């Protein structure tokens, strides 16, 4: 049995400890905001916070996340009102939206550790997250609008 702490809730997981966290979230807990895009830590669609850092849930065995606070997009804010989510709305970032939970989680982890990232720091932090629809200029603008507001 593995003890998980997800979005402030305690969960006991009985399945295969090698199962990637992604599939536990999606298949067992119906937390479908965390997406599958590649399964090999190449796209960032599955990004969650583990202990406050951005992690690819598709490449993280659930056992490795035991007893650490895990936050998914569903738990990032109560009403979808994290400053980044607000900026995402204002700038109308999403096209299809499939990558956006991962992008927002990645950006939130970036700003939590660096409130005023430079363009190069944004590139470094965000380039593991693919947006096939190509919303990169808007993602960058949204991150900068929040970073600018808080600095």
């Amino acid at each position, binding site marked *: 049995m593995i003890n998980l702490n997800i979005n402030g809730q305690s969960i006991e997981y009985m399945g295969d400890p090698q199962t990637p966290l992604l599939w536990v979230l999606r*298949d067992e807990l*119906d937390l479908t905001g965390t997406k599958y895009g590649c399964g090999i830590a190449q796209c960032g669609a599955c990004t969650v916070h583990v202990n406050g850092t951005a992690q690819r849930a598709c490449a993280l065995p659930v056992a490795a996340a035991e007893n650490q606070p895990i936050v998914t*997009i569903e738990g990032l804010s109560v009403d979808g009102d994290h400053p980044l989510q607000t900026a995402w709305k204002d700038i109308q970032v999403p096209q*299809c939206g499939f990558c956006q939970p991962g992008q927002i989680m990645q950006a939130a982890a970036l700003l939590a550790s660096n409130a005023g990232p430079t363009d190069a720091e944004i*590139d470094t932090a965000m380039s593991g997250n*693919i*947006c096939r629809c190509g919303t990169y200029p*808007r993602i960058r603008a949204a991150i900068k609008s929040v970073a600018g507001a808080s600095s």
Partner: protein
Amino acid sequence: MSDSLQAPVFDISRRRFIKAVGVGGVFAVSTQLLSPTHVFAAIGGTSLTTSQAVNLFVALTKDGTVEITCHRSDMGQHIRTAIGQIIADEMEADWERVRIVQALGDPRYGDQNTDGSRSIRYNFDRLRRLGASVRQMLAVAGGQHWGVPAGECVVANHKISHTKTGRQLDFQDVVNRLMTVEIPQDAAITLKARDQWRYINTGMASVDMDDLINGRAVFGADVRLADTKVAVVARPPVVLGKVKSFDASAALAIPGVLKVIAIPVPTAPLVYQPLGGIAVIATNTWAAIQGRNALKIIWDSGVNGSYDSREYQQRLEQKAREPGRVIRSQGDINAGLAAATTRLDAEYYVPHLSHAPMEPPVATARMTSTGVQVWAATQNPQADQAEVSRMLGLQPAQVEVHVTLLGGAFGRKSKPDFSSEAAYLAQQSGFTIRLQWTREDDIQHDFYHTVSAQKLSAGLDDQGKILAFRHRTVFPSIGALFSAGTTNPSAGELSQGFSDSPISAPNLQLEVGEAQAHVRIGWLRSVNNIHHCFAIQSFIAEMAAAAQRDPKDYLLEVIGPARLLEFEGMSEPYPNYGETLTRYPYDTGRLAHVIRLAAASAGWGRTLPRGSGLGIAAHRSFLTYVATVVELNVSSSGELTIPKVWMAIDAGTVVNTDTVVNQCQGGAVFGLSCALHAGITLQNGAVEQTNYHDYAVSRMNEAPPIIEVQVVASDALPAGVGEPPTPPFAPALCNAIYAATGKRIRQLPIGNQLRT
């Protein structure tokens, strides 16, 4: 499990295909104004068999909420919002009280095939009329309520007012009365004037915005039905290959794996049939993937087993060096080329491309007592009905297709092989099945963008003016998917940036060569425009360089004076994306206009430092004109950076101005991926790439930080938006590379070609 952990369950109870009016306090507008000639004339191939059929686009609930049905699929182009804007505007609904409902697949909606950049083109007029008819009916209902003529009633922003007395009613006050009001005749419908539009031609946010940023949006894989099992399939590595033998014992030993089922071998033509193979069904996705990996299968490669894309490239290139079938001819090409002072020849190559939408294909299916229900990220639910019914031996009407949000599509998801797999496995296993494609499945078993070789030749006079232009194109046709052995591209494929060449030359000849298809060829965002635009717009810059002219000025000169192209000398009529040239002319003036706009905003002509350059390209596709200017820098080691891109688009009347900008930005980045990285190669008939690490798409660090878009204000008929921004990007980029370095890229992807 606590409530806060519950992801919302897809609302399966909200079945919107209600044939009767006035069900459960819901008023539904059925309308006969959608007469076959009026609405369906532009929708080639769809026959409205029951012109009396109820089309439910608008419903009012008891509390006055307006429910607007969206019958097209949303893959990021925000069509759910745009359709809402059109209808809500014309019927004067308050946007805050509008709810968008997604239609099931049903031919009674007319065409639901959401590709070809045509949702607005096909529906703008009919949906405006539909909305306007409701507004007029609301006025009648208000008039009846007060016992005054409808003409004295004004409908605005969810209210009906009696102008003489100032009395007001809310829409909700007339719901019941509305049910008895006669639908106005087509001729009696009055549309709002453009300057009265509230929502159309504004940049309103997506109706799904909140869901998209808080993780609640329901995409294909997010559908949650009771007791669903997950299936993952091992498909033949080679198209038309099959299983020789297999051993599933190791797979079945994996905890969670329930069943292993063989999927029937398809026969040519493939159309949308599943490719066959072995499915592993498990209690969860991880177990299904593990089980699939544990299968031991010996494959028979079949007829395509010797396909080698490198060797095939040489054959295509050779073919392009030989005379082909003449598609369009003006003047005397040989005499023109012979008379030239300067002769240019160049060969271009663009490889197979994969759609690689962020969300791989996925569908959920469950059998019912009357047929099957399918929930799918599909661009074309009616195609799902047709393919699933074929696969299961049912009638299309027995297949109920629910359309989820699509996590990107780009043409991939208009081919419903994945729904068919899900439904077949549901039928065979008795389970509710979620059929999940992995990314590897997606990259390796796509309906690929074609592969093409082209040879372009030009003759210039001593002033550098174009005397003669010859363009040969060779590529396997999408037609082979539908008719096995097809080796000639259709007029439609050729019309995409080839037969509609805007080049104004006294001697011009366009030729096509035959090519066999060895993979499933499909359509990918802007289709044949990708390779044709790349070649032509690069070659025009080559001519400009040979003539020692400014590329933008030369481009404008080659396009010639503003005029409507008549396509003289064509071997078959120019298809014009299914529209007449009267309704949607090819106006070279509009093409020149976007070129001038993009060039002006980019500050074309300014001096840039060494290693930097500007490149320009322009193209008409899907009846829309786009010009793109790329500024780029190439470092001494060959690293590319793109500080800025400028685009101008003339798509006629546009519904959502911000969506147009977003699609232009996205289309540019999509073009960037094609140009820099993308390329599917095959050996022994099998695709060599597997996932995003070896089929790379552009990431933030290489995407232009700023893509400035000008949307031309136009009251011309609406044209396409989703696809047209893509084609000019790659040639604009390569023209910028030439400006920066003097190196001409003629083969995509650019890959390592600039590395020093």
